[in-house]
């Protein structure tokens, strides 16, 4: 199992990356919308800690943490979000269209549920080529009501594909609670297709990692898909700027108090934690400085 320090560093990077980008957004330097995963970092970090570089993932509109955890380049991510030519997509596309196939990141996605068939197909492609790599599909609980969800689970089960479906259940889909979107329990949908589904506590990154390791092991062993429903909570609004007046303040506060990142930090020796924090700050500060110095996206690059 990955070390504590590695997990903490991963969580801290996701957390600070988004806090820093949110500041930038408020400062007016981010041209597109930002959907933050503050409070949900454990899903990305725990799951990706069970993966290797050659495994692939599909992400969502709320995917910075997935990208970072899978090893995307911080400089190019920051630059893309700031609309700079040095970004992953020359600054043309921003947060909802980040991709880095070299690290197995097939892309964030502006279409809810859009990645479900793609991850399933990636799993098929990996297997057909005799690779032992696996595909992980991250999606929100809102995506479980899309047609793609049922289609993908069915095919993945029929063909015993090496794919792990990770539902990041953060209690909201845009401006409405999960109760508007989900009948029954998400994790139980897997049973109906004859493969295991498990609900995991998103407050415990190691629990997420353990569940992911089992699911990934099954996939690599040719035993087929697994559905993980990670219970978490969306700390911020749907996007930066959404005050989220529609949600219960006390509930939100309670979740903030149970901050999984702080909890893990507390387990580390203070000095080590400080060192990691400092390293993360440097990384982000440098990335930000370089991005702000870079040229903005150029109409030349329209494509």
């Amino acid at each position: 199992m990955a070390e504590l320090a590695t997990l903490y560093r991963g969580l801290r990077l996701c957390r600070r990356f988004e806090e820093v980008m949110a500041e930038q957004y408020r400062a007016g330097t981010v041209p597109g919308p930002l959907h933050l995963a503050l409070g949900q970092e454990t899903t990305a970090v725990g799951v990706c800690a069970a993966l290797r570089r050659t495994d692939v993932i599909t992400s969502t509109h709320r995917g910075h943490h997935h990208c970072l955890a899978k090893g995307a380049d911080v400089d190019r991510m920051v630059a893309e979000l700031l609309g700079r030519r040095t970004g992953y997509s020359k600054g043309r596309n921003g947060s909802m269209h980040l991709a880095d196939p070299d690290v197995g990141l097939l892309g964030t996605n502006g279409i809810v549920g859009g990645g479900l068939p793609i991850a399933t197909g990636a799993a098929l492609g990996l297997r057909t080529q005799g690779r032992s790599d696996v595909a992980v599909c991250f999606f929100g609980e809102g995506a479980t009501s899309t047609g793609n969800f049922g289609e993908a689970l069915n095919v993945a089960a029929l063909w015993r594909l090496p794919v792990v479906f990770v539902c990041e259940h953060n209690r909201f889909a845009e401006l409405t609670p999960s109760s508007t979107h989900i009948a029954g329990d998400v994790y139980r949908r897997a049973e109906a297709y004859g493969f295991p589904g498990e609900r995991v506590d998103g407050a415990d990154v190691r629990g997420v990692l353990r569940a992911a390791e089992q699911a990934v092991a099954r996939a690599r062993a040719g035993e087929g898909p697994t559905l993980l429903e990670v219970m978490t909570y969306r700390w911020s609004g749907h996007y930066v700027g959404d005050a989220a007046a529609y949600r219960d303040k006390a509930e939100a506060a309670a979740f903030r108090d149970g901050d999984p990142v702080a909890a893990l930090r507390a387990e580390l020796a203070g000095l080590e934690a400080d060192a990691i924090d400092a390293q993360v700050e440097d990384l982000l500060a440098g990335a930000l400085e370089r991005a702000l110095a870079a040229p903005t996206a150029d109409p030349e690059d329209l494509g």
Partner: protein
Amino acid sequence: MSMKDLKFWQGVNQALYQEMERDESVVLFGEDVAGPGGPYGLTRNLHREFGPDRVRDTPISEATIVGMGIGAAAVGLRPVVELMFFDFCMLAMDQIVNQAAKYRYFTGRPLPLTIRTMSGSGGSYGAQHCQSFEAWFGAVPGLTVVMPSNARDAKGLLKSAIRSDDPTLVIETFGLLTARRQTPQDPDFLVRLGRAEIRRSGTDVTVVATGRMVDRALAAAEQAAVDGVSAEVMDLRTIAPLDRATVCESVVRTGRLVVAQEATSPFSVAAEVCALVSEECFDHLRAAPVRITACFSNVPTPPDLVEARAPSVADIYEAIAEISRT
């Protein structure tokens, strides 16, 4: 009749309010339209006013949102369903084209279904949230497609769509949500489906525009007037069925056609208008028709790139000036 200066979104909201008040068979459902009042406020207060049975938040199930509208309409309701962005219509194409559009053909019965969606750039949401493929639906027998360019028409066309007994797709434009126009308050004010509007009359060139390009075409026409060029500006308003008569009548008078749209050029509404005019007004054309459109690329995210890609007032002005020289 009393008028009010409304924003586009307010025109939509008033239309929904008035029609729901007028006819209890009118119901509304879509993502975030009830409690939240719509991601951009277009359905504000309707849930409070008309209650949970008539205004519903749906799960993220676009095909089923439209399909439920079909089923509900088939048994006597007059549903208005919302697909948040045009791009999401792509998840419901089967229900829109294979099912709704053909219902009357298959059953001989009306299908009073209104599908609202929003297209176009202006929101900096990028390539999967800002597409403009209204031409797709114009090609489908059985569908009426409207694309209002201002608060007044947004209200009047939506009210007509809701009262229509056939499936109607109402394409709102993101970039116009806060644009204002004097709008009649009379609950029976309607804008007739299938009629283009001449927003400015002129004699030298006809500028046919849609959605966000209408105001730009009007501004360009004012500039052209300074040079002594008289441009007629027509807002197509209804994409299908196209108001062929109004388009041709104008071009026969002016002998010149410029079409301005936010969509890209190939296989677009502008293509149909140019084809129509070249077929019907050939002997009256003094110059080649011109399409002023977004460049053929995906919609980017940064606002300056979005603007660089879309037609500007200057682009339309230059097209008017250029064509008038010939």
